[in-house]
């Protein structure tokens, strides 16, 4: 069984090479954000001046606030509406249910370039125009399918007799939902909410088409800055973003098993 050993060893090595490929650029970017040279020259000299100068950049700061506000609001809206829809899809049988479930996939599967430009055209046509409200509209719509898929997955593990048992004990619809169903699906709802936050906070394409110079989000602001030319400040803010979004997903993983049950 020496070959088996050897093959397994190769497999492990391969995974670590893949991880290096995935993480090296990110790590280098993070390191460079602490380097004195604005042209990313070596040798490396430690500084936090780029992070300090972020605080002077009003444009970045206001875009950051916009990103956070929009992410929080769209998370709340998408989680509430999405969980409600999941419950309805779980509890009731009706014609067209399959169609409604299938309709969740276009927002996920169609490239954001198409969705984003379509939103731009439509919002302009009906007078909503561009700006933070339009961005919020778009972000909630993009996050909703994720919430519904995640919460529905959790509901699949819920035994319908539990709701029946609660009703047989005299609980009304609201008591059944709040005291039996919601506690059970809560991990799914939290995971769905974290997904929604990540979708919104990291969203670039749709925000890009819907933003105006004063009303923009952090990724859009970073894109503009990159196209003007690289600066270590962008490294610094990018590093912050990537740390935040990865932390968010680690948190999500606590509530949602990506790899399925085994």
């Amino acid at each position: 069984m020496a070959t088996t050993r050897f093959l397994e060893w190769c497999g492990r090595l391969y995974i670590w090479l893949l991880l290096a490929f995935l993480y090296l650029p990110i790590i280098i970017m993070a390191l460079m954000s602490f380097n004195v040279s604005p042209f990313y020259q070596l040798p490396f000299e430690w500084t936090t001046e780029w992070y300090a100068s972020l605080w002077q950049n009003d444009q970045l700061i206001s875009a950051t606030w916009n990103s956070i506000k929009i992410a929080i609001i769209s998370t709340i809206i998408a989680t509430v509406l999405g969980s409600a829809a999941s419950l309805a899809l779980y509890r009731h049988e009706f014609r067209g249910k399959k169609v409604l479930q299938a309709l969740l996939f276009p927002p996920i599967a169609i490239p954001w370039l198409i969705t984003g430009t379509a939103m731009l055209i439509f919002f302009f046509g009906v007078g909503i125009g561009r700006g933070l409200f339009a961005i919020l509209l778009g972000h909630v719509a993009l996050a909703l399918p994720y919430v519904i898929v995640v919460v529905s997955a959790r509901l699949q593990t819920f035994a319908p007799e539990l709701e029946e048992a609660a009703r047989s004990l005299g609980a009304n619809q609201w008591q059944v939902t709040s005291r039996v169903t919601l506690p059970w699906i809560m991990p799914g709802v939290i995971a769905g909410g974290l997904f929604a936050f990540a979708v919104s906070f990291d969203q670039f394409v749709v925000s890009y088409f819907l933003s105006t110079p004063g009303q923009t989000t952090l990724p859009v602001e970073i894109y503009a800055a990159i196209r003007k030319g690289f600066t270590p400040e962008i490294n610094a803010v990018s590093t912050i973003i990537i740390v935040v979004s990865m932390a968010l997903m680690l948190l999500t993983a606590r509530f949602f098993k990506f790899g399925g049950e085994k």
Partner: protein
Amino acid sequence: MAGVQVANLSRSFGAHKALDDVSIDFADGGFYALLGPSGSGKTTLLRQIAGFDFPDSGRIAIGGEGVERVPVEKRRIGMVFQNYALFPNMSVADNVGFGLSVRRQAKATIAGEVQRALDLVQLGKLGGRRPHQLSGGQRQRVALARAIVTKPRVLLLDEPLGALDKALRVDMQIELKRIQREIGITTIFVTHDQEEALTMSDRIGILRDGRLVQEGPPEEIYDRPKSEFAATFLGDANIFRGETTGAGIRLPDGTAIAAGAGATLAAGTKASCAVRPERIRIATDSGTPDPNANLLRGQVSKRIFAGSNSTYFVDRDGQTLKVIVQNTGVERLAEGQEVVLRWSPESTVLIAAG
């Protein structure tokens, strides 16, 4: 506490008639079993009485009050589910107290009632546990305590012992019966286990294809089945088919079988006779002839030893008859042996051809 009356109840799902004109009277304080194969409508009937589903036509009354359009949460029933359906996010005490808590009773009242219910099912010390920390039998008791703590008018059990292993099931049968007697609640339980139905209930209703086939005390149904289905579904039976002579039937080969019980039928119509395997005596010779007894000759084709008794399969004129004999150690018949079967007309039930 209250009796339950079901009258002319029908319910269809699409083209499938799940319940077809079913009427049963469940007397106050009785213990009823609804017995039938899967798909017979017994669970549908239970869910109609519970109020999870409403009938297409017919009436359901609990304690004389018509409830067929009252939703489950307003019916004041208690129900125990097949897989217990204990709320996994709550402790045992919170599970049992749920029904009282949704009725907004005071915390102290709830705690007292919960303790009394848990004591009744002999789980007084386990209130703080979570459902997943309990054994199957304990979960069963918690589900029962939860169902009766609200003082429901009727207790409904859906295959309550189905998920337990054999030994535990027998314990729980006795336990369930004790608790039911103690609180005197009208109890209706669904089962496909005929032994469970026979040992536990005061009355049994047998359902088939959405219809009530027969209803009555266990002894009556066992001793006086009104259809071949009832005879073979509840216990084992040998069925003979032929033409009635008035006092029995005549088989196609001319053999007469006298029946001392069952339907009164006009001579000449098609009918059958049912005989329980344990009522038949088996011997190698004719012995002392009893002029009244039914008598048939056959050949042992197979013998199955089951400890306290043995089952003989006896071939006769294209039919295989089943005979169960207590193992007294006196006599063992070999396969292939010619035998004489004898049984009294009183053990023979005449059934109209269905």
